[in-house]
Each structure stands twice: as structure tokens, then as C-alpha cells.
């Protein structure tokens, strides 16, 4: 019997269907897809050449490490390792779980892949360039493979931060030797791990799709798909959140109050160990004269920046290490604004009428507002500060290589990790041309950094890190602004998994509340 419908029946049916769909409570759908906003696009998914926390978050979801952080806390649990033991200060032994397979048909994860993944950090990569994160594995002498599933990490020296910033974190992600041999430089965009998620799609500037790997050996992630959407503009992200386009986003601290008015939003605030500062290139004239740097430091009203740019929602930073971290310098001086002193310093430096200067900032409203306040402050001592606002890609290359020699002032924000050695490593002499945009070199600083990385004596480490911050203060290359506050908005039905540093998210542990 053939079914026949007339036009009215079709229209009635369509209307009923549409009404039904509209009335069906959204929460009644089972959620297996999570949409998260990224505040920039990805750049490189090779663990050794990743840019920052955004890439590391994906790496942690797609690959395995020997150990990983438990959900939301700084405690380790075994991941790829069936067992792992620190035998002594310079030896760590591990045995892998069996049957873990790399996505993309690249075979089983073995101790040889661990060796490949860790040792490559200290070997020249594409273009002969060493990894930006080489220092994470600086203490590694080599990985000895003792069996298909077992091996030993042999260290050159004691390395107290190794677990925190290397083995259990982004630099500890285990990649496939076979995949790297087969894909070459494509590994920057094609990631094949053995973790809970597989990288299913990456459309630059549009979306990154992580899909739960059915072959993953271990607890399955709650969400079958995680879609990451790069939305640079905070305001656009807020609108996307309100419209239900995204489920989770980081926020500027100043945006929290507004977002809290959205009944579908749960606001999460966490103390941060990030650090934001105005850096001064000490090699560039006239900033090579410390009196000019001191004048700038005395002229900029940091309290005004906190109030104006951050709406008073964050505390002022006095040094590199945030409170609570090993090496926090509790007695760090608070630089008071001193315009007559600043003018005198400029006059002594032969610039009584000021000079033209430039500050480079990322195109985020908070940073732009901070730069405008600095601009107004410096105008009072005759310094005509131009603000150069750059988008992500251009900004992050503006201090690197020879281009970085022309940088003057820059407003920078780095993500912190819970070991102080991660914070100090970017300011060593060998980072000039990479992430040390102030181009400040100090032999004592570098020596203390090595001590901090290699001694297990906590007191000695603390003393070293405090002394290093004193040296940074003496250089007057850094005007510390804030350690920020990490603020997130998630849908009320979502229970995100965020590590205490705020920047590190664990997609596989995001749950429905």
C-alpha cells in the first residue's frame, strides 16, 4: 500500500515536528559533545615545538605521558607507565603497560617511543633549531631501553623539577617514532598519540575536533567529541557562550561580572601563578641606559594599571614568582610612582625632553588598556609612547630572532607552572632571541638557574630563586604588573577539570555535572 500525503498534511506534520523540537528541553539530549573556546588558534602540535598551554592541553588529551596529573590536583598517577620509580637522584626506572596503540595505525607504544620522545628535545629539530622546551629535559643524559616495555631515564644531574614540568606534563608526551619518521614536518599539524582522544580534524582558525579513541586502553572520556573553536575576541566569545555555541571559555577578569549575569553560566575563579609585566629591551637605545629604564619604572603607575585595565580584580605583582610558589620573594620592593625622580633620571641620561618610544602588545582589551595607561603615565615625563597592537601570530614572533632586537617595550604574559624553574628558564641568556625579549643577560642568573634546576635541597633552591628575582629587579628590565586571576565561564551542567595553575585543562576529565 502506497502512503499518500497531501500538501496540508505535510505542512501540519512539519509544523508539529518543528514545535516538538522547539519544546523539547535542550537538557534532555544526552551530551556527548563539548565545545570549548580557545583565545587563539593553534600553531604547532609537536610537543617539542608547541607554543604554549593551548597546544599542551590538546597534547595531554591526545597522547600519553608516563605519569599524569590526577583530575584537578597536582598529584601524579600512572598513565603509560605500569610502574615507575625514582631509584636515586639520577635514575628513574619505568615499565610500560602493554597493548597501548598509537592512533593512525602506527603500532604499539613501546619503550623505544619513550626514548625517541624525550631525547629529541635536546637534538636539533627542523632547520637545525633546538626545541624551545629543551630545558625541560636538560638533565636527561639518555633513555636506556631495557626491554620492549621497560627502560630507564638516566640523568646527568639531579633534577627536582623533572616530574612536574617534563615527565608528567607537555614535554613528557609520548609520540610515535614511526609516525614522526613517516610524517616528517607534518607532525606539527598531524598528531597521533595513544591517549583518550584522537585529533580528528584541524581547520586553521575554525575548529579543532578531538574524538574519543575507541582503541584507548583506560577509562573512556565522558565527552565523545571535544570541539575547540578559536575565537580571539572576548566579546565575541561571550556572545557565542550566551547563544549556546560554546560551553566553556576562559574570561578576562574584567568580564566575569557581566558573564555572571547569564543564568546558564557558572563562573570559576582560581588564583593564578601566571605573570604579566612590561619588559624593556636592555640592548636597544636609549633603554641600554639603566637610568632610562629606572625613569620608565618610576613613571608607570602599576596600581593605576591594575585599577584601570583589570578593574581592580587582580592583585599587584611585585616579582616573578606568585605567592605560594617555592621561591616567592615576599620582601620584594613595591616601586612607588615618582615623577620628579623619573624626570631627573631622564635628564641625567641626557634626555631632559623625553623621547619617542613604542610598546608592543597583544590585541586583548585588557592589555591595550594597560598600555594606554602606561602611555598616559609616560607622557607626564615627556616620553611619547606609541602603542603597537598585534594579533597573536605577529605578536609572538615580534621578540624573536633579529626582529626582537628592535623591540622596545613589550607587555607580556606568560603562563606559570608549579615549579619555579619553569618560570625562570625563559629569562636566561640562551633564551635571548627566543622568549627572553628583554635581551637581558646575567651570568649569575644563569648559574643560579642551573643550581635551581639541579639541586634537590629545597632551601637552596628557594634561596637561588629569590636571588634570581633580586637580579631581575636590579636590571630594571621588568615592571611587574600582576599574577592575574584565572576566570572561566562554563555552562552550569559542565564540570571542567582545571589544574591549579589555571592554564592546564584536562579534556578527558571534563564531566557533565
Amino acid at each position: 500500500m502506497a502512503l499518500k500525503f497531501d500538501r496540508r498534511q505535510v505542512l501540519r506534520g512539519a509544523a508539529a515536528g518543528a514545535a516538538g523540537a522547539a519544546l523539547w528541553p535542550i537538557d534532555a539530549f544526552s551530551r556527548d559533545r563539548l565545545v570549548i573556546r580557545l583565545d587563539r588558534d593553534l600553531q604547532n602540535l609537536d610537543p617539542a615545538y608547541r607554543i604554549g598551554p593551548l597546544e599542551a592541553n590538546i597534547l595531554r588529551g591526545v597522547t600519553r605521558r608516563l605519569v599524569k596529573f590526577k583530575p584537578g590536583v597536582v598529584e601524579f598517577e600512572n598513565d603509560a607507565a605500569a610502574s615507575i620509580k625514582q631509584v636515586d637522584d639520577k635514575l628513574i626506572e619505568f615499565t610500560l603497560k602493554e597493548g597501548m596503540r598509537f592512533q593512525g595505525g602506527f603500532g604499539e607504544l613501546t619503550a623505544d617511543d619513550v626514548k625517541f620522545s624525550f631525547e629529541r628535545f635536546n637534538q636539533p629539530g627542523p632547520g637545525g633549531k633546538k626545541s624551545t622546551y629543551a630545558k625541560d629535559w636538560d638533565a636527561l643524559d639518555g633513555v636506556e631501553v631495557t626491554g620492549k616495555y621497560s627502560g630507564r631515564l638516566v640523568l646527568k644531574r639531579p633534577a627536582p623539577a623533572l616530574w612536574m614540568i617534563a615527565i608528567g606534563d607537555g614535554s613528557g608526551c609520548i609520540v610515535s617514532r614511526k609516525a614522526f619518521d613517516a610524517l616528517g614536518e607534518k607532525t606539527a599539524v598531524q598528531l597521533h598519540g595513544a591517549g583518550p582522544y584522537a585529533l580528528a580534524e584541524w581547520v586553521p582558525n575554525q575548529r579543532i575536533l578531538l574524538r574519543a579513541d575507541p582503541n584507548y586502553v583506560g577509562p573512556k572520556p565522558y565527552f565523545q567529541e571535544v570541539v575547540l573553536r578559536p575565537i580571539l575576541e572576548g566579546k565575541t566569545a561571550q556572545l557565542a557562550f550566551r547563544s549556546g555555541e560554546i560551553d566553556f571559555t576562559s574570561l578576562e577578569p574584567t568580564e566575569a561580572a557581566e558573564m555572571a549575569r547569564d543564568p546558564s553560566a557558572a563562573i570559576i575563579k582560581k588564583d593564578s601563578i601566571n605573570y604579566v609585566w612590561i619588559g624593556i629591551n636592555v640592548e636597544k637605545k636609549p633603554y641600554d641606559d639603566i637610568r632610562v629604564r629606572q625613569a620608565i619604572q618610576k613613571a608607570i603607575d602599576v596600581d593605576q594599571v591594575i585599577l584601570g585595565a583589570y578593574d581592580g580584580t587582580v592583585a599587584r605583582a611585585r616579582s616573578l614568582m606568585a605567592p605560594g610558589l617555592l621561591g616567592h620573594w615576599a620582601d620584594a620592593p613595591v616601586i612607588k610612582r615618582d615623577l620628579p625622580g623619573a624626570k631627573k633620571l631622564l635628564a641625567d641620561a641626557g634626555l631632559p625632553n623625553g623621547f619617542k618610544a613604542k610598546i608592543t602588545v597583544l590585541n586583548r582589551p585588557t592589555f591595550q588598556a594597560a598600555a594606554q595607561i602606561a602611555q598616559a603615565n609616560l607622557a607626564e615625563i615627556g616620553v611619547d609612547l606609541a602603542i603597537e597592537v598585534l594579533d597573536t601570530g605577529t605578536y609572538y614572533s615580534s621578540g624573536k630572532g633579529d626582529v626582537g632586537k628592535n623591540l622596545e617595550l613589550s607587555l607580556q604574559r606568560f603562563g606559570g607552572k608549579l615549579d619555579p624553574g619553569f618560570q625562570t628558564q625563559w629569562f636566561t641568556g640562551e633564551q635571548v632571541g627566543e622568549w627572553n625579549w628583554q635581551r637581558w643577560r646575567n651570568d649569575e642568573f644563569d648559574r643560579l638557574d642551573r643550581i635551581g634546576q639541579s639541586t634537590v635541597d629545597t632551601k637552596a633552591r628557594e634561596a637561588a630563586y629569590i636571588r634570581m628575582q633580586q637580579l631581575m629587579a636590579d636590571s630594571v628590565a621588568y615592571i611587574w604588573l600582576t599574577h592575574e586571576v584565572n576566570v572561566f565561564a562554563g555552562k552550569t551542567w559542565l564540570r571542567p577539570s582545571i589544574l591549579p595553575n589555571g592554564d592546564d585543562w584536562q579534556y578527558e576529565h571534563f564531566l557533565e555535572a
Partner: protein
Amino acid sequence: MSTIFGHIWRSSTGKFGLILAVAIIGSAVFAPWLTGDPNRIDVLNRFAGPSWQHWMGTDHLGRDLFSRILHGARIAMEVAAAVTAIALSLGTVLGVAAGYGPRQVERPILILFDILYSFPNLIFALALVAILGPGLENVVIIVAMTVMPHFGRIARAQVLRLKHAPFLEAERVLGASTARIVFRHVIPNIAGPLIVVAGMEVPAVITIEAGLSFLGLGARPPLASWGTLLHDGYTYLSQSAWPVFFAGMMLTTATLAFTLFGEALRDAIDPRLRTDP
């Protein structure tokens, strides 16, 4: 001149546009004397609403909005004047050369006009900003380039109309040089329509400048362009709507004023250019 002014004054829309345009130009010229420092920051007084102290409230850094709006008018007028002057001069020179010169000169100029004309104004301006970089000086050059063909085409059309006029033929027969004919006879005779076009282009120029500044490609901080005021206001819209309201209102008012004035000027100088029925 008095006839032209009288014609504009007799038109109700023209009178309205003229009064507003004069008020805007006046406030732009006298902004430094009418207001305080537009860049003075007062973070304790951010997002304040209108009051006796701050007639239009304050922005996200506590800067006085009235002062910034008036200084924004100054930037808008400066850009409009500079762009119109450059575009008018260059367009006239090229248009006259195309109209009066040989075909070898005319063709490349027309192709140039066609190329420039084929892009929407803002898109073309964005492309040029990508090459020249942001900044107010570059915005003047860029916007001048985008509106210049309009002047050039009008100039060429007017020259073609005049080229074989009897009085010019007489001049040639009497042995007048080309330069004399162009500067003494052609340009004065085509000036009317070009001035009308200049008046009509002002609102477009103001809008493009504001658009580029809104996108962060025009006026640099701390300059107070209406576009940057709108952008900053949009960013902090949830904290205060006043910056967007006042900057938007001024932009709309200025555009309306110069459009009405331009139309009245057109009707007064050259009624044949009217496009309305």
C-alpha cells in the same frame, strides 16, 4: 557666493545641514579651548554617567567623553579636509589630463580609475592598510586614493563637454598655450561640479576613517577618533553604554549634516547633478 549661500539657506534641509556642519566644524576648531585634556586618565572615575563635571560621562579609563568627542570631531574634520584636498587635486589633474590630453594619456588614466573603482571603498582601504600599515597619515592617503577616481571621472566628463566649446576654440585660434587654456578656462569652468562632489564626499570620508579606526587601523591611541571611541565603547558596552551612544550619535549627526549640506550645495551650484526626481 551670496547667491549660493542664499539658495542653501532657503532650503530647510540645507539650512539644517549647514547649521549642524558649522557647529561640528566650530567645535572641532575650538575643541582645545572648549574642553580639557582628552587624554587625561582618571581610573577612579571610570564609566561615569553624564554629570555637570563630565557632560557625556567618562570612558573605560576615566577620560572625559565630551572632550574626546570634540577632539574626535577635530580628527574627523582634519581627515576629511586633507582627504578631500588631496583627492580633489589629484583627481582634477588626472581627469583634466585624461579629458584634454591625447588618447595615449587618457587610456592608462581611465584604466587606473576603473581599477580603483572596481573595489568597494572599505575593502580597498583595508587592502592598502595592509600594505602601508595603520596610522592616521596613512588613512588620509588611503582614503584619498579610494575617493580620487570619483573626482577624476567628473573632471574628465566636464572637460570633454568643454573641450570643443567655441570660447576654447577661439583661444586656440588666438594662439593660447594649452597650459593657459587649462588653468585660465577649463579648470574654473569645471570647478563647480567638483566642489559639489567634494561636499558630497565628506560624509563618506568621515565614515571610512571611523570604520578604519574602529578596526584599529586608523587613529592610534590616545587619539580620540569617533571610530576608536566606538570600538572602546563596544568592548566595554556592558559597563557603560554612554561612549557608544555619544560617539555613534556624533558620527550619525556629522554624516547627516554633511550629506544635507552637500545636497543643498549641489542644488545651488549645479542643479543638473540632482539625482532625485
